[in-house]
């Protein structure tokens, strides 16, 4: 079976695991919402909250990403399935792309809820002119995060202390996404007088990041999970 066939198979399997276990709905979404509410308590100022809302959305996304990635690879290592996939000669490229696709789908659902919560909690307004920029930002940033999450999840999967190792490895790497996505989202929402045209240069950074880790992950994932 070719890499795309394997990718579809692995993505469908991962989404079926999620659907059966309901971890995203029952644990990750409440966690992300809790993080948002805690930010609101800590800042306790409507003007400040509105100003920093884009950054808070992406910070909550990053924290939730860690949980989702940990979970995505815990199901692979719990009973030696990742090892079994290698033994079965399943193409590592297909595994990488499939797990990235499943992660992308889960993050998209998560971000949709987080953005909705931002509108309610932080009284964020979405202007019609910024909708295209906002959607592009989410698409590019989420794709990059899915690739990085899968790559570093695979790297940490076989390591001792992987639960603590993953945030240490991954958070510094996703910093450019946090910065780029926050600036682009601010531009899309018109935070502090920013206009959509201010946000498009940041999209370039997000697309470059996604392309870099997409290509890098496709090439390196097999070696990372190999013995």
């Amino acid at each position, binding site marked *: 079976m070719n890499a795309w066939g394997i990718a579809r198979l692995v993505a469908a399997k991962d989404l*079926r695991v999620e659907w059966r276990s309901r971890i995203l709905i029952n644990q990750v979404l409440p966690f992300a919402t809790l993080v948002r509410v805690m930010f609101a308590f800590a800042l306790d100022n409507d003007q400040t909250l509105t100003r920093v809302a884009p950054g808070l959305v992406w910070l909550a996304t990053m924290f939730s990403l860690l949980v989702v990635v940990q979970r995505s690879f815990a199901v692979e290592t719990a009973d030696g*399935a990742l090892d079994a996939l*290698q*033994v*079965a000669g399943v193409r590592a490229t297909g595994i990488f792309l499939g797990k990235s696709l499943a992660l992308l789908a889960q993050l998209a659902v998560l971000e949709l809820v987080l953005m909705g919560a931002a509108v309610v909690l932080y009284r964020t307004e979405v202007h019609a002119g910024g909708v295209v920029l906002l959607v592009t930002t989410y698409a590019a940033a989420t794709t990059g995060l899915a690739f990085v999450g899968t790559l570093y999840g695979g790297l940490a999967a076989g390591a001792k202390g992987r639960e603590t190792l993953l945030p240490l490895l991954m958070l510094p790497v996703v910093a450019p996404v946090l910065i780029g996505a926050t600036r682009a989202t601010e531009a899309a929402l018109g935070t502090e007088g920013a206009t959509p045209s201010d946000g498009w240069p940041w999209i370039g950074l997000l697309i470059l990041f996604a392309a870099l880790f997409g290509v890098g992950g496709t090439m390196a994932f097999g070696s990372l999970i190999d013995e």
Partner: protein
Amino acid sequence: MEPVARPVVHLVDVVAVLGGFPALAGASLTVERGEIVLLRGPNGAGKTSLLRLCAGLLAVERGEATVLGCDLAVDRAAVRRRVGLLGHANGLYADLTVGDNVRFWGATVGATEGEIAASMERMGLANRLMDVPVGRLSAGQRRRTALACLVARRAELWLLDEPHAGLDAAGRDELDHTLRAAAAAGATVMVASHELERAGALATRVVEVVGGQVRGAA
């Protein structure tokens, strides 16, 4: 199944290292098609390493190693696609049902729904357990599910590490029947086991693994 002209497994003075320690220290073994070979020996003797080497999971440091006609030093990936390894772990997804798991593993080699159903039927999983999540199964039932996945994958060389562990009497009989049927159909089976009586009765040949070397190998 592709025709195999040469021995299925041909190892000559193979040395392999695992975690900085020698796992195999000059192992030599030849296994012909259709054989069921029992690897016996004490813990740490190298039985599991030998199986993992044949599965293409362990690199050959020195010596000559050919599995299913492929040189392990050159193309381990080609070997992996044609062997099935069942180790101490089952390689199953606990949140998925028995049917989901067998379907997934069968799909990795393009198995049809009919083949997948037949593999579950053969392992006694077709009806009452098919829709049960693997996480709710007993250890024996999980083992049986893992074997059904192996059947669905149509592996030419079966590498089994303590396959009887955790199986009830019926499951053990089913396993032995499945292995004999697979060997009769042309598959080759290598079993590492401490259950010498049962595995010995199943095997067509017994070899001893001691200190990373194989004794009694033809």
